[in-house]
């Protein structure tokens, strides 16, 4: 305790003992030099009053009357008394409705029996009916060779009913198996009988609910018997309403080590609960230890369906076992030797079918276990006879499905991203093919427009010439000159439908050709490029009037004949041309707006569809997990 807190406590205590009007002066004196301390104590005092008024944390009203002590009373008045032909010797159990006594037959002290006697004061109509039902059920179950028999039933002098059960003389099944060093096959044969007996009880609408080695006794002659159906549950409603509400005895009707997840949760129980407990017993008999609990809490057991380790894996670990009332540590080699084999041999025997069978019995979800104890028993028999068993390991698909079910969100995200990305790649490759085609089409259209323009122009010129002077068309200009003029025309008309322009540039045009274009930066760069001999084409992607465009130029070089004509022509402004010299640049300007727009809208569509696919797949995964 901190010093300060101790001081707070003292002041609080002393102040609360004072009348309300004396507290302030008291605290003023005590906390003269520490106003914070004073505030703290005052807050606690105020809080105290409020808490009392509201009943804050009032545990008294939650207190329940304590239960009577579990320690048995020193003397049970029934001990030593006689019931019919039996004398009660010792109390060996107690339940909600009655106590269980060990008794001997009067004329034959060697024959011991177990007697369940209804408690005094429990003889309501309801309880009597339940007790009679129990007798009826036990009488039916006792017909089975591996279930303790009902020997007798009667009523005491004061009207309390009782029944007499065979007292099974024998060892717990796990001790019996170890004492006799039974092999795996021998143990399985014994277990098969037990499972069969449980199935018989199930057919008589009784669930044992507390199957464990101490309730399965084996006689010296090797006959196993199930005992303690006293807490069993009768499943058919007309046999009693024990199924409906748990009675107080049911809190004890569970041994945590053997209890199924649904039993721990307090859910309603089915025959699958007994199958689970039998599976745990199988683990214990064959590999020498129970699987560790795979669930640590009620809420966890509801969702997690993790498989316990296999028997063959557990067999390699040291075990903590119960021998003669004590827990002892046992090495894998010792465990194996009690089964007449080596540690490696034991693991080998358990691997495969037996592992699968035990795991099938102890699955967390009741519906996924063996459908009945009968099926379990038949499977053990099949194994012993070398036939294929029903139990199979979880398939890859089931394993995957479990993983998905345990992690729906990460799986959903992963699946959505994977599918979305694949879809996106597919869509984009499709898109790029489309874009290539569309761009090619646009290019070809432009070319065709150019050519068509040139053709129409030339036709018009020839027509005009023929019209003006018939026969003169044969004296038309040579093609090169015509081409130049054709482009001059195109340049004048400026552009094609999509805004493509053509320009003809030259440093040295003829004098009679008007409109000498300005020498812009592009042309200068292009000319320098051509003159340095680096190639005959040059391009730049640039913004023209804020619009992204492609400027493409090709070199126009002088031919031999061109030089002769130019150098001798009177209008030529330069007369020292040589073949191969660059005369000018033919430039095409192609605005890229349309191409960019096409690409952009294509990508937008691609992303929109990817989004739809990702969300769709994610939703589908979640829906699938929820509904299956």
């Amino acid at each position: 305790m901190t010093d300060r807190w101790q001081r707070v406590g003292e002041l609080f205590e002393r102040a609360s003992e004072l009348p309300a009007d004396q507290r302030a002066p008291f605290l003023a004196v005590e906390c003269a030099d520490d106003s914070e301390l004073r505030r703290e104590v005052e807050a606690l005092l105020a809080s105290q009053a409020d808490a009392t008024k509201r009943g804050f944390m009032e545990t008294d009203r939650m207190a329940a009357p304590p239960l009577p002590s579990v320690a048995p009373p020193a003397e049970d008045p029934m001990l030593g008394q006689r019931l019919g032909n039996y004398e009660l010797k010792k109390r060996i159990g107690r339940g909600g409705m009655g106590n269980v006594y060990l008794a001997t037959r009067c004329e034959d002290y060697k024959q011991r029996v177990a007697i369940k006697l209804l408690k005094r004061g429990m003889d309501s109509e309801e309880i009597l009916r339940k007790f009679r039902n129990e007798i009826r059920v036990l009488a039916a179950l006792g017909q089975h060779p591996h279930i303790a028999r009902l020997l007798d039933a009667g009523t005491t002098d004061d009207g309390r009913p009782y029944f007499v059960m065979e007292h099974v003389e024998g060892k717990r099944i796990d001790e019996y198996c170890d004492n006799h060093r039974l092999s795996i096959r021998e143990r399985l044969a014994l277990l098969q009988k037990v499972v069969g007996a449980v199935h018989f009880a199930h057919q008589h609408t009784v669930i044992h609910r507390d199957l464990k080695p101490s309730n399965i006794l084996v006689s010296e002659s090797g006959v196993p018997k199930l005992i303690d159906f006293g807490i069993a549950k009768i499943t058919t409603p007309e046999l009693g309403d024990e199924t409906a509400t748990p009675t107080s005895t049911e809190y004890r009707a569970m041994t945590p080590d053997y209890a199924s997840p649904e039993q721990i949760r307090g859910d309603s129980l089915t025959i699958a609960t007994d199958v689970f407990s039998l599976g745990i017993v199988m683990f214990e008999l064959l590999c020498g230890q129970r699987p560790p609990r795979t669930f640590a809490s009620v809420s966890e057991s509801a969702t997690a369906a993790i498989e316990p380790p296999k028997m063959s894996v557990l067999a390699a670990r040291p075990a903590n076992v119960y021998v003669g009332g004590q827990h002892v540590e046992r090495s894998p080699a010792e465990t194996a030797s009690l089964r007449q084999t080596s540690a490696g041999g034991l693991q080998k025997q358990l691997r495969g079918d037996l592992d699968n069978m035990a795991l099938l019995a102890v699955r967390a979800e009741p519906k996924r276990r063996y459908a009945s104890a009968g099926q379990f028993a038949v499977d053990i028999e099949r194994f012993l006879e070398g036939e294929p068993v029903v139990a199979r390991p979880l398939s890859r698909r089931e394993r995957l499905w479990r993983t998905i079910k345990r992690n729906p969100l990460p799986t959903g995200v992963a699946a959505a991203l994977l599918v979305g990305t694949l879809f996106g790649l597919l869509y984009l490759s499709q898109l790029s093919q489309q874009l290539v085609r569309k761009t090619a089409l646009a290019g070809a259209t432009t070319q065709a427009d150019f050519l068509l323009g040139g053709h129409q122009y030339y036709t018009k010129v020839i027509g005009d010439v023929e019209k003006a002077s018939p026969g003169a068309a044969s004296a038309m200009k040579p093609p090169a000159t015509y081409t130049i003029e054709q482009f001059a025309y195109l340049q004048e008309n400026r552009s094609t439908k999509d805004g493509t322009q053509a320009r003809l540039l030259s440093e040295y045009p003829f004098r009679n050709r008007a409109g000498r274009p300005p020498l812009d930066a592009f042309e200068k760069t292009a000319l320098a490029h051509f003159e340095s001999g680096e190639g005959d084409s040059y391009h730049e992607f640039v913004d023209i009037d804020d619009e992204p465009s492609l400027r493409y130029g090709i070199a126009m070089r002088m031919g031999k004949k061109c030089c002769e004509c130019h150098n001798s022509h009177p209008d030529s402004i330069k007369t020292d041309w040589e073949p191969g010299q660059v005369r000018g640049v033919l430039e095409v300007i192609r605005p890229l707006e349309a191409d960019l727009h096409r690409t952009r809208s294509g990508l937008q569509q691609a992303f929109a569809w990817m989004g739809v696919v990702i969300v769709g797949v994610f939703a589908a995964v979640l829906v699938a997990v929820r509904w299956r």
Partner: protein
Amino acid sequence: MSGTSRDITQLLGQVASGDAAAEAQLLDYAYDELRRLAGGMMRRERPDHTLQPTALVNEAALRMLGSEALASGRDRAYFFGAMATAMRRVLVDHARSKNASRRGGGAYERQPLNAVVESLERDAQIDLIALDDALKKLEQLSDRQAQVVALRFFGGMSVPQIADHLDIGVSTVEKDWRLARAWLHTQLGDGQLDHAQGPP
């Protein structure tokens, strides 16, 4: 409880030395005590909630087994302390996961323990998570006072039982309880009921 005190210490000793029969008896006893506690917590509930204390008792018993309270052979004080701790863990963990599943906006699965948590919070006018956090703070101030609160609230023990258990005087327990309760009330404030009841 005092009538069986020697039995429990004795049983614990036997369990520690590996006596399985004693272990079964002790487990039986733990079940009875846990059931009494859970019954008290659920007393104001409707009778159709009978299944839920079963889950509470079973889970608290599992935690006790896990805490090795049964196997360590310590005295009965340790045993009851472990019981109160197990109850506290189960209830607080459950309150936390309940809140998380609500906040997460996912489907609100009705767990078997929800009714226990809700009933307890309503009855004691307390938010279990806030109480747990405040108790951890109180431990810094005074470990003993935090123990008194935990034993009384989660262990359902009376003042004389706590005094006996912690080996201190009855008046000290009463003082501790008064101070701790007033302090917890300042810590939890007045708004805790809204939180405890959750969104409408």
